């Protein structure tokens, strides 16, 4: 060791220095060359496979216009504003509209739907009150049968990077925008080879003259590289690498490819954790309109943003943004891209951007509860990564107008029924599910009383006992067995049941009263617990469980007698499924939030159509519904009848659980099914019954939505018969002095003990058969 060291020391410097230098230089050249090859390889492969992760876009159900459609001038105007249509003095371009009294004129933008393209067209809509009176349009302004508007985007499923963009090919980018960007960022773009020494020199001179940085020396190519590899540190080595990459990029790819990538990649704004990339999305973001609809001044404003998207943000710093816009315009004028006249007009135009306080804010908050349902439905068929990166378009069943109306009353309505909250207690919470009565499409959803806010989604995830909401299943099972009629007499009297190895169970009525012998329909209308247990034990717990399954409950229920009174746990959305099947007259259609999925370019991928299966016979359903309408007329929901005069008859059921922990109401008209749940997250008692809590909220919502009355024509085998007003168990005690008319199956007439039909004449009986009480 020591000898070697010594021998080295003794060697004269002049002998080893040049040799080492030569070696170092040789190896250095090899290393640099390899580095170059590596960078070149990297940039080529990266750019070639440049594939942005695109968020899935989620759309609400589009408004359809036709004669008779429920739509008012105000509603359609709101809708157009949400879509970013511009109100103008004359309608010439897509996305413009004007209002004249009860008439709206517009040119639609057109949209690629799953079932075909809706072309952009001129439309005139005449309204009379809350409906469309006439619809004309097209070039000849003839009558149109139906026009489908473009859909409102209600949210995105974003990539983890938070980057959002709408990539567009270069041909779809207005020439003026390309000119503006080149003018202000890299005027020798088409002449240099990736880096631009001349441009740098020019910029330096300009900056020195101006005393501040007015021009940059980076080419568009270099800026693109910086954006694509944004996370790397800005070291000297990195900068050399960037320059080399720019040279390589410019060498291998055309100027148009680079410009197109730049236009789509560049960062142009931030909204929460969503990063706005690319000019097409920035156009939507700042102006609420597509690039093709922007004027020169607006394009120039966008072109000024890459220099500092935050500093020149037109929403927050309109003055700076205006100055910057005019700098861009001046550069364009200098370089001959625009005329002096164009410059004069554009540079004095008023800055009009979408303010974050209006529709943008709403769409940021969005519809988190409904979106969770969408995500849950989609995750059966799509993995999360595909949803975050493939740019899918997801068409949902959400009715934005209905959702907004529901939200507008929900918070106040819940507050109006809420009992004082004790110190440290959680506030009363709510969940609402509204579906289409015919097809099972979910049209509105609230996961909490303040429905615009993300959080625990009670509509999907609060699985609670449903109380008396289970009773229609008990009564339907009874009516279907053919052993019971609406006039069957039940015993509302004390009962004690002992389950094997369990405590004896002695249910009570809610009001602690006992009603003795009661009619079946009356027991349901007034929600009598003891009579229901009497009925359910006769029908059989297995039959009730089976009925719940047929109506759409996904899990089997433990068959204890307490299930008859609602010791069955369900989420509000599951309750909605049961009542959906009842509202559709015994046809079960699975609830749906997603209708169709297309790829980003509009080609169809998957459709989730209506499915329907008959699970209960129409006559039994009709009889059940007689009693469920009676809930409003005579039963537990009659307190709301006064407020629903315009909407009755309706069918529904109240539900209250032990110690008033949950307050439920589920009901339906011809068009809608609505389920409302109220309760505390800590399961504390609410002090509310179904009637004093959820029913009131339901009524507030349904009067706001103007639910359609329930008009259900009786099936052929239904007949009407008179029975004694008082239930009795033997013909001897039959009292036909006061009677009532009830529907029966022709092969399931009332028992002789209550039948008062014999007391009438033959003519009366004949007449009764054809009498339609509703």
């Amino acid at each position, binding site marked *: 060791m020591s000898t070697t060291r010594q021998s080295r020391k003794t060697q004269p410097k002049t002998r080893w220095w040049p040799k080492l230098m030569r070696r170092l230089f040789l190896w250095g050249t090899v290393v640099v060359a390899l580095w170059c090859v590596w960078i070149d390889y990297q940039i080529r492969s990266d750019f070639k496979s440049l594939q942005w992760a695109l968020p899935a876009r989620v759309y609400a159900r589009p408004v359809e216009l036709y004669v008779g459609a429920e739509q008012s001038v105000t509603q359609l105007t709101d809708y157009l504003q949400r879509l970013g249509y511009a109100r103008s003095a004359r309608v010439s371009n897509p996305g413009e509209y004007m209002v004249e009294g009860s008439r709206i004129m517009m040119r639609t933008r057109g949209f690629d739907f799953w079932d075909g393209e809706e072309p952009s*067209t001129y439309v005139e809509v005449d309204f009379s009150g809350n409906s469309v009176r006439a619809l004309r349009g097209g*070039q000849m302004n003839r009558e*149109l049968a139906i026009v489908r508007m473009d859909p409102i985007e209600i949210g995105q499923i974003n990539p983890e990077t938070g980057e959002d963009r709408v990539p567009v090919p270069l041909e779809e980018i207005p020439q003026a925008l390309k000119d503006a960007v080149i003018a202000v960022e890299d005027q020798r773009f088409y002449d240099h080879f990736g880096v631009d020494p001349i441009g740098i020199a020019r910029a330096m001179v300009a900056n020195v003259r101006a005393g501040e940085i007015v021009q940059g*020396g980076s080419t568009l190519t270099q800026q693109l590289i910086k954006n694509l590899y944004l996370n790397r540190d800005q070291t000297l080595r990195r900068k050399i690498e960037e320059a080399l990459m720019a040279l390589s990029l410019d060498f291998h790819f055309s100027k148009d490819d680079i410009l197109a990538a730049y236009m789509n990649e560049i960062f142009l704004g931030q909204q929460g954790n969503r990063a706005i990339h690319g000019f097409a999305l920035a156009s939507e973001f700042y102006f609420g309109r597509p690039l093709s609809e922007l004027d020169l001044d607006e394009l120039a404003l966008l072109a000024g943003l890459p220099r500092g998207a935050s500093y020149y943000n037109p929403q927050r710093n309109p003055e700076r943004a205006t100055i910057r816009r005019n700098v861009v315009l001046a550069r364009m004028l200098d370089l001959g891209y625009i005329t002096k006249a164009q410059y004069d007009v554009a540079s004095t135009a008023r800055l009009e951007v979408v303010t974050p306080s209006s529709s943008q804010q709403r769409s940021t908050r969005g519809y988190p509860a409904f979106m969770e349902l969408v995500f849950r439905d989609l995750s059966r068929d799509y993995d999360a990564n595909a949803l975050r990166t*493939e740019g899918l378009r997801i068409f949902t069943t959400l009715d934005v107008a209905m959702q907004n109306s529901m939200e507008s009353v929900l918070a106040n309505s819940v507050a109006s029924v809420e009992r004082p909250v004790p110190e440290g207690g959680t506030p009363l919470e709510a969940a609402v599910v509204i579906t289409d009565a015919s097809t099972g499409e979910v049209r509105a959803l609230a996961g909490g009383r303040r429905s615009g806010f993300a959080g625990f989604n009670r509509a999907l995830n609060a699985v609670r006992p449903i109380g008396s909401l289970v009773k229609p299943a008990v009564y339907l099972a009874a009516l279907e067995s053919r052993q019971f009629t609406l006039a069957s007499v039940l015993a509302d009297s004390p009962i004690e049941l002992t389950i094997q190895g369990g405590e004896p169970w002695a249910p009570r009525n809610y009001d602690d009263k006992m009603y003795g012998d009661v009619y079946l329909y009356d027991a349901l209308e007034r929600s009598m617990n003891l009579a229901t247990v009497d009925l359910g034990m006769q029908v059989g717990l297995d039959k009730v469980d089976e009925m719940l399954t047929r109506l759409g409950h996904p899990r089997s229920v433990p068959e204890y007698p307490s299930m008859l009174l609602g010791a069955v746990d369900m989420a509000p959305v599951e309750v909605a499924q049961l009542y959906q099947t009842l509202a559709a007259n015994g046809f079960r259609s699975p609830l749906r939030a997603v209708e169709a999925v297309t790829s980003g370019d509009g080609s169809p991928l998957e459709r989730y159509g209506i499915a329907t299966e008959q699970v209960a016979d129409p006559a039994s359903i009709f009889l059940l519904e007689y009693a469920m309408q009676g809930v409003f007329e005579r039963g537990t929901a009659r307190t709301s009848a006064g407020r629903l005069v315009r909407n009755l008859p309706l069918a529904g059921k109240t539900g209250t659980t032990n110690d008033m922990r949950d307050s439920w109401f589920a009901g339906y008209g011809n068009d809608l099914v609505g389920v409302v749940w109220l309760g505390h997250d800590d399961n504390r008692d609410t002090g509310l019954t179904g009637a004093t809590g959820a029913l009131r909220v339901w009524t507030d919502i349904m009067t706001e939505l103007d639910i359609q009355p329930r008009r259900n024509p009786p099936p052929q085998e239904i007949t009407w018969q008179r029975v004694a007003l008082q239930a009795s168990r033997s013909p001897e005690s039959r009292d036909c002095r006061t009677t009532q008319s009830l529907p029966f199956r022709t092969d399931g007439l009332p028992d002789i003990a209550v039948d008062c039909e014999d007391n009438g004449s033959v003519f009366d009986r004949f007449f009764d058969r054809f009498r339609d009480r509703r």
Partner: protein
Amino acid sequence: MQLHGQRLVLTLALVTLNACSANYMSRGIPAPIESRDGSSTVTTTPRMGRVMPGPAPTTSQEPAARTFPAQTGVPGIDDVTPATPPATYPPVTSSTGQPVYSPRDSAPPAPVPQDTRPSNPVYTQPQEAGTPASALLASVDAAIAEGELERAAALAERALRISPRDAYLWYRLADIRYQQQRYTDAAGFAQRALSFAGSDRELTREINALLGRSNDAAR
């Protein structure tokens, strides 16, 4: 600006780079923007073919208030058109003169409709022209003619949203599912159609015939 100091190095590097990259020149220039649609890892599992129990006894009800069609007469046997429309089926156009549904560039070539019912013509009801449902039904016919049955189903469902109690629309949806050989679905829609058919005996007969075929095929 900060890069200014390194221009000399860069110019040197450029020479090297050109040498380095010369080998790859022949590979051609890719179009980066268009490549985004290239790979698709979407997993689509069709959720179809719900298994249903056998047909439940079904009875007719009085028709609900119809928003359409105002029938212009009792359809006779002359109103029945062949299931597979002739090849010269007129293109469906909106009143603007623009095609309502234009074929998509990306769509696969339309498959020849599989005619599973050579002797089972689609029953047609006269529709009042100019109503939303009649316009949509015209599009349904056109989609069926092009063999795009799922698109036809989507259009029929759109019409049903406007007229949810129209027996004829439910019947058409049942017929489309039958053509798609989704027989249990077809039976479900046919039963739904029956429940709204009311006193329309001709329609009731057609629905029952379709229901029978669907139940037979589903077995």
